[in-house]
């Protein structure tokens, strides 16, 4: 159980990134800013976490990247693939189980 939780906690950035990108495609800076805004400053993921996660998700086929011009600059936009949506579903399910478990313990 402890092992499952440890693995899950290391997947939190993955969950946040997949969730936000499932709504709309974004580029790196936009994503970092969105995580902070949507989480009301609860999460301020460092670039050192975001970019390796993005590239790893892309390599595993959960994300796809494309070049698009924005504000006069060519940016790399990321969006979620069908495989990414399945991964998001699995991570969300894990998160719900952990959240319920913690709520139960705290409420006991």
């Amino acid at each position, binding site marked *: 159980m402890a092992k499952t939780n440890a693995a899950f906690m290391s997947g939190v950035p993955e969950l946040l990134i997949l969730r936000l990108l499932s709504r709309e495609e974004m*580029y*790196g*800076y936009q994503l*970092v800013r969105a995580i902070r805004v949507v989480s009301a400053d609860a999460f301020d993921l*460092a*670039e*050192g*976490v975001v*970019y*390796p*996660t993005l*590239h*790893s998700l892309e*390599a*595993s086929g959960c994300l796809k*990247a494309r070049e698009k011009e924005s504000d006069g*600059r060519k*940016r*790399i936009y990321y969006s979620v693939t069908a495989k990414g949506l399945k991964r998001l579903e699995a991570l969300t399910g894990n998160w719900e189980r952990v959240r319920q478990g913690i709520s139960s313990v705290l409420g006991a």
Partner: protein
Amino acid sequence: MKKLDLTHYRNTLLEAGIPFRKVLRNVRELKDHYADLVQKAGEQGMDEQEASSWAAEKIGDLDLLAREMIARSSRGMLHRHPMLMTLLLPPVSLCLFIALMMLLFVGAVELNNAIEGNNGTMLQAPLWLKGLYMVLKVLLFAVPVAAAIAIVRVCTRGRILRRYWVTGLFFMLLIGSGLNLHVSWPDSGNGDGGSIGLAVGYALSPIDGSLAPAQLSTLRLIGTLMLCGGVLMYMRRRDAPGETGRG
């Protein structure tokens, strides 16, 4: 004033074997990210120096970022075991080519025999068969060169350390220069039925009835590669304008 310098970061990723295209894209992303942070800091009232320092600090430790990128990158066999692949690919590809070449030639001889028919007289090699032999001889020389160029091309695209592709080149030359195709044509005059053989080694080798040192093959291979070197350098510069060689 702290500024973002991505040169070391880029080289670290390249040396780890992450493909050139991916590294360039990631560096470009970080440059854009940095520019966005500087712009945001400027909008918040920081002067240029403060904004640059703040943005560079916000991006964080580039060595740590590089380590994370390397740890999470999927790298092919060539990138994970460059020396092994450099030493393994040339002999394997050459063996396959030689086997294919011998099969082709033996098949052609058999076909010729079937066309001519065996009427008890010794067959003479027709012109087309001699032509095929010449083509195969040239290919036997060209294939090591082509394979060596392919190794350099793949390695320089992936920006693998120079010692790997230099090793690959010399290994290819070493193998290529030790091979000699030898055919003795059927001769009704002295009753010779003809034969085909592949000489492997670095002693004096029989080529077309005369003796030619294997070193000559080496010189021919090196000469061709030197000519190709210029083309490769040109392609490398064209592919990566502004990038400097390394390794």
